[in-house]
């Protein structure tokens, strides 16, 4: 087992542990189930649900999830064949989009601050996230050509320390406007790097000379400024309050000592700046360590530390996905499956799926995980609670669009069973039709027939009379439809058609054997009409059906009474058939004159 990176944090479960000594637990997809036990048969009646990620429940953060989902989907659609220069500018703009979404969320949380204690906590986390993201954008995505790296870093620091910077700038700029003017002109490309380097050296030497010659000795203020311009570390450190963070110190220091810093040299200054600023006794916070890893261009460490520090996968999933699109992550496979990007996106999406409402977003994330996304989706989509038919229809549409036929069948079966349990036979049938589930259609037909034999009449005639092509879904259903039609024809006194239909049900083997007796009994009133309805041939066929029925093995479960009834029925039928036969023969043999 791997070593633990940090000490795990403790979560207190209120009211647990008062009566029992031990806690048992079980992992769920998003939550943890915890129960108390004494290892005896009588357990505690309480089960505690411990939610792993509470951020997902914040209504304002929800907008973050929704808007970033849109950006994520847009990012995936960027075509591979665009030239890399255009791609880079697109990636940068996407990164800025993500950041502006974070900022908007932060502003809204700040407006609502005080209403919920969680909100202030979220604000500070979002601040940190945006800081890290911005730095990653500067260092990794918007990779500036050598020379303008510092300018980007200055912007980065400025953005996050705007008020402090304003004052610092006032102090710094008050007395040497001309020098500063030419200074800022630099990285706009009007000069090459070496040209600038030479000019800067001259300027720096001049500042140094001023200091040595004590030009500003009379004015302590000016002397301090000059020392800062030279990049004197001790003087800079004295301005700790203005600088407020070690990375501000770092950038300031670089500004005045190494303005043309190249990315590979950054980490040395970063480490030393942090040490100098924090001093020997203070220890760096997680945020500091993450930023340091970024300065060291150790992407994997950044991602890893962020994953540990944050309790929600949102940040690492989206950032890693973007970095992966920029082809910055080495594609080494993790020993538990897919590559890093896919792993993080899957984790994030799985967390979303446990949310009662955000599960719809998760579907798109799974779609863009080529290796395991489909499997994850197949497993999760069946567990979405289906309270209303409308929700079930939406879930089904998701499955049908992705040809997940097994899930379609399974969900339709759940809905159909529920409908059947509540006696909604029409609904049950409509679900079976959608899933093309012949077996269930047969089940429904059986239920209809059962109702018919219990009540003596059909229920839900509106359904039976209007089955349409759905009838063909299952043999039993076809029989049911036709049987109902027979009843209808009989009711409309279209006897010869009814007779023909009834016979065909038996001879074409549409009717199940078990119902033949019922059908033959239905034929009795037709046989006993004054007019001859069944022709000779038809009567012979009926007779053979009856004999076929009787020639089968006797059902040993029948009581004596039932056997009596059966044999009486058979006798009656034989008699009726015989009578009909004679009348039919006479009728057909008579020549009409």
């Amino acid at each position, binding site marked *: 087992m791997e070593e633990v990176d940090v000490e795990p944090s403790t979560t207190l479960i209120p009211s647990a542990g008062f009566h029992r000594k031990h806690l048992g637990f079980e992992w769920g997809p998003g939550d943890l189930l915890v129960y108390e036990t004494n290892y005896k048969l009588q357990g505690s009646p309480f089960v505690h649900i411990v939610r792993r990620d509470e951020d997902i429940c914040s*209504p304002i953060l929800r907008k973050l999830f929704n808007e970033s989902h849109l950006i994520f989907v847009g990012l995936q659609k960027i075509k591979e064949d665009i030239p890399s220069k255009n791609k880079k500018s697109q990636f940068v703009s996407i990164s800025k989009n993500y950041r502006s979404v974070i900022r908007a969320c932060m502003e809204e949380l700040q407006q609502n601050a005080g209403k919920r204690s969680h909100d202030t906590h979220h604000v500070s986390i979002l601040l940190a996230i945006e800081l890290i993201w911005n730095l990653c954008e500067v260092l990794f995505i918007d990779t500036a050509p050598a020379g303008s790296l510092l300018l980007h870093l200055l912007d980065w620091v400025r953005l996050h320390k705007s008020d402090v910077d304003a004052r610092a700038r006032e102090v710094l700029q008050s007395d040497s406007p001309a020098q500063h003017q030419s200074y800022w002109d630099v990285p706009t490309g009007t000069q090459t790097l070496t040209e600038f380097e030479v000019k800067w050296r001259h300027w720096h030497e001049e500042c140094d000379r001023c200091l040595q010659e004590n030009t500003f000795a009379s004015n302590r203020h000016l002397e301090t400024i000059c020392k800062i311009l030279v990049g004197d570390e001790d003087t800079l450190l004295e301005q700790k309050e203005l600088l407020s963070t070690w990375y501000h110190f770092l950038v300031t220091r670089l500004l005045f000592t190494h303005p043309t810093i190249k990315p590979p040299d950054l980490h040395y200054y970063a480490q030393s700046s942090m040490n100098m600023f924090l001093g020997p006794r203070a220890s760096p916070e997680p945020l500091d360590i993450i930023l340091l890893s970024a300065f060291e261009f150790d992407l994997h460490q950044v991602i890893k530390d962020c994953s540990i520090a944050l309790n929600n996968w949102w940040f690492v999933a989206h950032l890693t996905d973007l970095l992966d699109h920029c082809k910055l992550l080495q594609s080494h496979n993790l020993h538990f499956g897919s590559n890093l990007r896919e792993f993080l996106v899957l984790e994030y999406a799985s967390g979303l799926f446990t949310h009662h409402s955000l599960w719809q977003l998760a579907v798109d994330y799974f779609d863009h995980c080529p290796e395991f996304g489909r499997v994850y989706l197949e497993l999760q989509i069946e567990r979405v609670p289906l309270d209303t038919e409308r929700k079930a229809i939406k879930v089904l549409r998701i499955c049908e669009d992705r040809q997940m036929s097994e899930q379609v069948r399974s969900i339709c079966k759940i809905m159909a069973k529920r409908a059947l349990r509540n006696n909604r036979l*029409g*609904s049950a049938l409509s679900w079976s039709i959608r899933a093309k589930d012949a077996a269930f259609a047969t089940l429904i037909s059986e239920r209809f027939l059962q109702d018919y034999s219990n009540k003596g009449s059909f229920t839900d005639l509106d359904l039976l009379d209007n089955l349409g*092509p759905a009838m063909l879904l299952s043999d039993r259903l076809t029989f049911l439809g036709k049987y109902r039609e027979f009843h209808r024809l009989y009711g409309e006194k279209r006897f010869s058609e009814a007779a023909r239909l009834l016979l065909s049900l038996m001879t074409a083997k549409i009717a199940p054997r078990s119902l033949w007796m019922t059908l033959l009994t239905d034929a009795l009133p037709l046989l006993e009409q004054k007019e001859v309805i069944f022709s000779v041939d038809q009567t012979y066929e009926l007779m053979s059906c009856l004999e076929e029925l009787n020639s089968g093995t006797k059902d040993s479960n029948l009581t004596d009474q039932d056997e009596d009834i059966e044999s009486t029925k058979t006798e009656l039928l034989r008699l009726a058939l015989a009578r009909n036969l004679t009348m039919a023969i006479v009728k057909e043999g008579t020549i009409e004159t």
Partner: protein
Amino acid sequence: MDPIAKYISQKISKTRWRPISPALLQQPEVFATGSWDNENNSVSIWSVGEHGVSNTDGEFDEEPQLLCASQHDGDVMDLQFLDQDRLVSASSSGAVMIFKLQPDCQALSLAHVWERAHRYSCDNTPCTAVVCRSPELVSVGEDGRVTLYKADQTEVVRVIENADSSTIHAVTFLRTTEVLTVNSIGQLKMWDFRQQSDSPAQILSLTGDRVPLHCVDKHPNQQHIVATGGQDGMLCIWDVRQGNTPFSLIEAHSAEMWEVHFHPSNPSHLFTCSEDGSLLHWETTSGSDMSTLLQIPVAAQPDTVCQQPRCA
């Protein structure tokens, strides 16, 4: 005009414009939304543009602003304004609720609930749709019941039990005493409340596959013309006097059509929205056939569409 999108922290199932009294020559600026799939659902009232101010084209530039909201027990399955101050909702808990809106739109409160209007013997079941023609309301549900209420009476006026063996998805008034329902086995059924019997006055369905129908709307001026949409995204226009075939069939969408609406004052225009993510605007040429189609793509799947009547 480009649609304005605003993220709010809930999924919306239905949205309806608040009716304006016909005396005012104004466009409605207040609309209601109902949410679904939340642990705590709500009905909210929003306003677009500042009250009484929109630019000369009648277009709105601002994002909608939330005016007031009320908790709603269960998903909002349907929402209708009964009149200017009262809003009726159909809930997934089986209840039908009336909300009262303060005249200045500052508060929304629950005025009346018919609990378990739709139910099974031991379970609740969603009420799928509700339609109003003040003071009468009709609701339908997954239990296949059709229920008639009067807004000011606590007792239900009439229930047609077992009106349907499948789920009734939508309902519309044809005449004052007649309603038309559509169900999940593709049938349109006409019910006449003047008749004592509990069977439909007429049943219509497409010959062919029994595709579930999800929405229905009546032509504003002609009582016998209705439009329906269903699971396969087909838009059908029917003349209910004339038997079993719709006189117009259009393959409108590639997925379920959730809502269809005739424009209230300009009925040669029709709007449909669908699970496939599009909101379509249809127009008839002179005569009764639908021809041209204008497509307005939307980012997510729209569940609901509602137009405001423009004043002449």
